[in-house]
C-alpha cells in the first residue's frame, strides 16, 4: 500500500480536525406515492468506512442520496426521519441544503468530471463554485494534496492543464474523488464508485478509500461483496420484498456480517446464494 504516505497529506498537522459521525434515524423515503425506504436506522461511525450492501432496487442509493440532501432534487421525492451530522439534523429548516452538501461530499457511479474544466480546475471546482477565494499558492497546494489523497497525482502532475474528460475512466473517477475531497468534507458518500471500472482501477480506488478513511467518514454503496469485505469497517444489509419498501435486515462490523451473520438472508446474500 503506497497510499499510506499520501494519506498523511490529507490533513497537515497544522489543521487537525476530527471526522464527523453521521446518524440516520427512522428514515423513510417516497417517490410520489411509492415508498422505497421504511424506518431505516443506521449509525455511520466517524472516520470509518460503512458499506451499504443489498440487491438492486432495495433503496441503498436512495438512502445514500438522502444523506446529503440530493434525494429532494428528484421531482416528487419526499422523506421522513432525521439525519444527524455530529448531532445536528441536516434537514433542519434553518439550514440550507447547500451547507449540508458542502460538509457531505458525494462521488457518483458514473465519473462526471466537468468537461469544460482542466484537471486542475476540476479539483478546485468545489471552491470556485462556492465562491470561496484562495490565494494562488494555497490553491496549487490544495490541488496537489487532493490529487495525492485520491492517488492520482503521479499520473496527472504533468498534464494538469488538459481537460478532465481526457483522462481514462478510472482516472476520471479518482479525479472526482479528489474534487470531492478538495472542499474538505466531513463525510464522503460513494454510490457504486467502481461499477464502471476495470479491476486495476477498482483496486486503486479501493486503496484511495482505505487511505482517506480516518480523515473522513466514508459511506459506500456497492454490489461487489468482495469490495465491501475489503474496504469497509461496518456493513449494513438492505433488502426489499417485491413492491415493498426497503429496510435494513442486519448491520454490524464487517467481519461479523461476513463471518457470523445472524440472519439467514444475510448469510445467503454475502455468500452469493441470491441477489
Amino acid at each position: 500500500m503506497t497510499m499510506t504516505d499520501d494519506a498523511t497529506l490529507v490533513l497537515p498537522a497544522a489543521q487537525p480536525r476530527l471526522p464527523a459521525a453521521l446518524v440516520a434515524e427512522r428514515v423513510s423515503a417516497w417517490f410520489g406515492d411509492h415508498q422505497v425506504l421504511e424506518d431505516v436506522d443506521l449509525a455511520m461511525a466517524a472516520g470509518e468506512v460503512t458499506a451499504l450492501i443489498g440487491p438492486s432496487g432495495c433503496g441503498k442509493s436512495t438512502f445514500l442520496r438522502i444523506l446529503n440532501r440530493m434525494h429532494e432534487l428528484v421531482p416528487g421525492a419526499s422523506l421522513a426521519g432525521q439525519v444527524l451530522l455530529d448531532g445536528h439534523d441536516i434537514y433542519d429548516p434553518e439550514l440550507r441544503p447547500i451547507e449540508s452538501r458542502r460538509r457531505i461530499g458525494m462521488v457518483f457511479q458514473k465519473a462526471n468530471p466537468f468537461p469544460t474544466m482542466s484537471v486542475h480546475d476540476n479539483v478546485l471546482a468545489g471552491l470556485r463554485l462556492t465562491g470561496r477565494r484562495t490565494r494562488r499558492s494555497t490553491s496549487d497546494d490544495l490541488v496537489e494534496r487532493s490529487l495525492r489523497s485520491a492517488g492520482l497525482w503521479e499520473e496527472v502532475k504533468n498534464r494538469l492543464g488538459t481537460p478532465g474528460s481526457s483522462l481514462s475512466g478510472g482516472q476520471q473517477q479518482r479525479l472526482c474523488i479528489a474534487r470531492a475531497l478538495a472542499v474538505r468534507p466531513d463525510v464522503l458518500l460513494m454510490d457504486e464508485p467502481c461499477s464502471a471500472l476495470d479491476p486495476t482501477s477498482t483496486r486503486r480506488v479501493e486503496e484511495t478509500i482505505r487511505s482517506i478513511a480516518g480523515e473522513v467518514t466514508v459511506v459506500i454503496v456497492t454490489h461487489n461483496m468482495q469490495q465491501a469485505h475489503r474496504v469497509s469497517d461496518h456493513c449494513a444489509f438492505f433488502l426489499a420484498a417485491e413492491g415493498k419498501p426497503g429496510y435494513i435486515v442486519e448491520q454490524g462490523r464487517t467481519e461479523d456480517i461476513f463471518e457470523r451473520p445472524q440472519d439467514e438472508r444475510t448469510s445467503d446474500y454475502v455468500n452469493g446464494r441470491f441477489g
Partner: protein
Amino acid sequence: MAATAPRKVKVGGVSTELVLHVGSAAFGALALVWLMYQQLLPITGTIGFWLSWYAVFLVLLAAASATTLDRIAVVDRIVGALVTTAGAILVACLAGIVVFTAVRGWTALKHVNFYHDTTAYIGPDASLDQGGIWAAMVGTLEQVAISMIASVPLGIATAVYLSEVRGRLARVVRTVVEAMSAVPTIVAGLFIYSMLILKFGQERSGFAASLALCVSMIPVVVTTAEVVLRLVPGGLREASLALGTTQWQTVRRVVLPTARSGLVTAVLLGVARVIGETSPVLLVAGSTSELNYDAFHGPQVSLPLFVFNEMRLPLDQAIARAFGAAVVLLVLVVVLFGLARVIGGKPPGHLSRRQQRRLAVTAGLAPAPNAVNVGSLEGDMS
C-alpha cells in the same frame, strides 16, 4: 523488422459491380424513356421525362441488383439510391440558388463602388459604376446587432428558466414561445408599427426594425438553447450541486460552459432567421437610399429591403444591383457563421497560456508539448 508495411484491408467503398448496375440502369432507363416519349406515346414535357426516367431507373436498378443479390440487399440498395437522390437534390438546389444569384449579380459585384457607395442622389437608371449598397450593409449589420443584443440574453435566460429552473410557469412560457415562433413576421412588423410609431409617435428607424426582428429571433434562440441545455448530462448538475453550490453557480460555471458551442448555434440560427427578413423592416424602418449610421433616428435601409426595392424597378442595372446585394447578404451570413464557429468552437477545458505556465512551474516540469491538444480529440457538444 518491418521490411514491408502490412497492407490494409480495403473495406467499404464502391464496388465495380455497383457501378456497373447503377450505370446500366441509368443508361437503360434513358433509352427506354426516350423510346416512350419520342417514338411510342403522344406525350411530351421535360419534367415528366426526367420523372419517368427516375422511376424506370429505380425499377431497372432493382432488376439488375436482383441478378446478384437477395431481396433484402436489393431493398437496401434501392433505399440507398432514394436517400442519396434526396441529398443530391438538396445540394443542387442550394448550389443553383447561389450560382444563379452570383451570375446575375456579377455585373454589379465587379465594381468597387458597389461596396462603399450608396444609391443616394443618383437615378435608378444610373450605370453600375455609380452607387452601391454601403447604406444597406450598415443598416443590416446595425439592425441585426441591436436585435441580438436584445434577443440573446433574453432568449438564453428564458431557456435556462425552462430547462434548469422549471418553474410553475414553464409550461405557459413554452406555449407562448411556440406561439411566438408562429407569428408571421409581417404581423410582428405591424405590431411594432402600431405600438411604437403610431401610439408612441416614434419615427421610423432601424431600431424599430430591430424590435420587429426580435419577435422572430427570440423564439428561435429559446427553443434551440433549451434543447442544447437539456443535452448537458444531468450527472454534471448533480456533481456540481453535491459540491455544495447554488443553482446559479451550477448554471453559470457548469451548464452554460458545457453547452457553449450549442448556444452559439442557437444564436446563429436566430440571426440566420432574421438577417434576410424584409416585411417587418419594410413597415417600420422607412425607406431611404441615403446612408444613415444612426439606427435610432431616421429611416434606414437594409440589404433585404434594398433587394426588394431594386427588384421592383424594370431596369437591368437595378436588377443587377438587387442580385449583387443578395450575394453580399449570402456572403455576410457565411462570414458570421464562420466567425461564430471560431468563437464557440474552442475545445473546452483549456487553460490560458498564463495558467499553463504557472502549472508547469508548480509541477516542476514543462507541460508535454502535445498536452494542450488532447482536448481537441474529445471534442465538445456539437
